């Protein structure tokens, strides 16, 4: 498990003569699969070669080449490097690609996202609706020829700021009402939307159990404004009495098309934007993005920066997990006492972030080839103090408060179970996957940064219920403390960045997929550079979003009151779900 498997030389081209070819574009990797063979190819890759985990699925619009591409990144849950394969289709509507749902059910939300934002139809997907935009929205915003409201130029920086310099406020430039373009013949005043019918129809597709009783099933919407949904998140559920027979997550209320913004931004400008994904763990978000762009640039941060990065990422994990445990207890009804005990520790960590990066939550601390600045005086002592004196004691105390509490146990043990097989099938990641008995952690499975130097255990629990998902966060916090203790002890001196700080980095053309083990799970970035100042494609594999794939199946059969606990135990952040 801990040693990555040696890279096999897979001769997939010989296996599928004529329909699978290596991707030979400069800076690219993987295989190009003919769409007719996609499903059988995926089956072979999964069943014969053991790539059982679909990490990321996304589309790329190659407008100049007139092609649309779907990119798949698959991994083995036993560890080791991944496999990339792609399908290319002409960029003419309808753009159709077979759905991989039969092989990797974890493709569900990701295929819906690619359909929504890029207009790629996945044939055979049982429920291909929009997921971030609403049903009835015209166009597919991530296509390169789609322009947003207040569009100015294809790429930042905009000339109007400098050298032209005439200050105008966006709302004056294009007053409300004129800032959108409508398709020909469309009158917004007359249009009637029906965004919900498709949702309710798909919700009603469940197996009816014959109980012999005449019961009415009731449709209930929980959210988007509901205290238990951790933000603007909605669950559409069908109830039989109090029991859930069908549940669909509905999201996108916080959607801002982060990826489109990212494709207009220069590489550096994206760094502070990544803070806003999972806004509770901005350091981890920075880490993933920096790693990915560094892969493309071929730079390696100096030792000191690597250590600082690890310390920050692990502090983030602790801050996130105590928060998640606290909120889970809120959801289970222990209103705010455990929550505030967790927040107390988080505050001390945020103080450190503030001293180091200037901000408690929007850290924007990582730079390509290092970090923004060295640790200010006194910070290392502070980190040392909390990692050695305080946190171990406080975590034990928090555990003592919760772990044996009979009410917590009754409400969480055996509830919302996700089996190990399902966790893999649905591409669950992070604590959700590990609480189901799969000891898969990117820090071990494919170490990045300097994680291979530290001694720590991959936390794992086996029941896959709410209780295990709470307890595994305690386990992970303890491992993070161990890592921080080692890193603080070994922290070397020296520079904190490998290159001169420049605001316009040169990123050679090519693609890169970088992933880190974020607090919520595997956080991946897929970046394509064409050698220009802005990325051509900038995609995020958001763990909160993909973990919701398993949410519906996990909740079926539970009482409505327990759904709240299940959601809390997944630990989502809407900034990342909706992007």
């Amino acid at each position: 498990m801990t040693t990555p498997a040696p890279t096999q030389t897979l001769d997939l081209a010989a296996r599928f003569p004529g329909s699978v070819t290596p991707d030979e574009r400069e800076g690219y990797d993987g295989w190009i699969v003919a769409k007719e063979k996609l499903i059988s190819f995926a089956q072979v890759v999964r069943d014969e070669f053991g790539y059982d985990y679909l990490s990321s699925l996304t589309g790329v619009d190659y407008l100049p080449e007139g092609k649309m591409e779907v990119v798949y990144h698959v991994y083995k849950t036993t560890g080791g490097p991944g496999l990339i394969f792609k399908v290319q289709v002409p960029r003419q509507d309808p753009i159709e690609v077979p759905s991989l749902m039969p092989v990797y059910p974890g493709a569900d939300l990701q295929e819906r996202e690619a359909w929504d934002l890029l207009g790629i139809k996945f044939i055979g997907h049982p429920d291909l609706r929009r997921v971030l935009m609403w049903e009835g929205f015209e166009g597919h915003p991530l296509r390169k020829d789609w322009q947003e409201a207040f569009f100015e130029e294809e790429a930042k920086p905009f000339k109007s700021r400098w050298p032209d310099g005439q200050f105008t406020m966006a709302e004056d430039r294009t007053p409300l009402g004129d800032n959108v373009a409508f398709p020909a013949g469309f009158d917004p005043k007359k249009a009637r939307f029906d965004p919900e019918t498709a949702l309710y129809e798909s919700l009603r597709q469940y197996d009816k159990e014959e109980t012999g009783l005449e019961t009415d099933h009731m449709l209930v919407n929980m959210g988007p404004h509901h205290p238990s949904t951790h933000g603007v998140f909605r669950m559409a559920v069908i109830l039989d009495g109090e029991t859930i027979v069908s549940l669909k997550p509905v999201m996108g209320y916080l959607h801002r098309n982060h990826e489109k913004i990212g494709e207009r931004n220069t590489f550096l400008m994206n760094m502070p934007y990544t803070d806003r994904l999972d806004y509770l763990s901005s350091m981890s978000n920075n880490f993933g993005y920096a790693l990915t762009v560094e892969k493309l640039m071929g730079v390696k941060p100096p030792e000191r920066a690597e250590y600082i990065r690890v310390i920050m990422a692990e502090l983030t994990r602790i801050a996130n997990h105590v928060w998640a445990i606290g909120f889970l207890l809120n959801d289970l009804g222990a209103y705010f006492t455990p929550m505030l005990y967790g927040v107390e520790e988080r505050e001390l960590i945020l103080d450190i972030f503030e001293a180091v990066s200037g901000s408690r939550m929007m850290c924007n601390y990582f730079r390509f080839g290092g970090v923004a600045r060295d640790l200010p005086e006194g910070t290392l002592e502070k980190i040392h103090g909390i990692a050695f004196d305080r946190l171990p004691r406080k975590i034990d105390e928090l555990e003592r408060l919760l772990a044996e509490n009979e009410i917590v146990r009754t409400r969480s043990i055996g509830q919302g179970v996700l089996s190990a097989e399902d966790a893999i099938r649905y591409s669950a990641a992070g604590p959700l996957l590990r609480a189901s008995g799969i000891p898969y952690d990117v820090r071990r499975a494919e170490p990045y940064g300097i994680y291979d130097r530290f001694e720590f255990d991959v936390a794992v629990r086996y029941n896959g219920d709410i209780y295990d998902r709470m307890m595994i966060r305690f386990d992970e916090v303890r491992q993070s403390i161990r890592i921080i203790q080692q890193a603080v002890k070994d922290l070397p001196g020296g520079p904190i960045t490998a290159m001169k700080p420049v605001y316009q980095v040169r990123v050679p053309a090519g693609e890169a997929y970088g992933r880190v083990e974020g607090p919520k799970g595997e956080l991946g970035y897929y970046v394509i550079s064409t050698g220009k100042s802005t990325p051509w494609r900038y995609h995020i594999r958001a763990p909160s979003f993909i973990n919701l794939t398993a949410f519906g199946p996990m909740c079926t059969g539970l009482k409505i009151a327990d759904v709240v606990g299940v959601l809390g135990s997944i630990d989502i952040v809407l900034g990342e779900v909706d992007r």
Partner: protein
Amino acid sequence: MDDMYGKGILKGLGVTLKHFWETYLDDAVWLVRRVTKGERRYLSLEGVAHRSSKDARGIFTVQYPEEKLLIPEEFRYIPFLVYDEGPNGEKTMRCTSCGICSRVCPPQCIWIVRSADPATGRPIPDPFEFQIDADVCMNCGLCAEYCPFDAIKMDHDYEMASTSRTVFNKEQLAKPASYYEAIRPINAAQENAARAAKEAARAAAE
């Protein structure tokens, strides 16, 4: 259930009781400190510092706005423009309207109007106008990080809620170098030394 039912709850209540008790225990400790050293637990810098240290126990709330968290030097909020003060009180903006800050700004909220020399019509360094749309600014600090002239810096003043749109112009953004040195002494000293060294090198070369 092999154990007495309710034991876990009692154990947990022990933790909350400890928390409760420690608050008053600390009050007593601080009472002694107050008598001996004149230090107070509440409404004082040392009290806030203690509550945000690893030794904090019991209640830890900082009661804003009467109390405020201590701000570290690196804290960043909305940029301002630095000007140097001459011996007779004249102000010289450090900004040369080079445009780097506006080009690096992720949400593109810096607008710079360059001045032109009336005689030649060529651009001159001093900006004619400099506006920051503070409602769009994401406080990322990149402008301050990449300005080559130490002319734009991040402020510490975070209390600027308003009921309308907040757009700052050059006059509103300008703050003296002495203010900058007061809020960021370590950074300012380093930068001053670096600038002095550069000047010296240039003088030596000439």
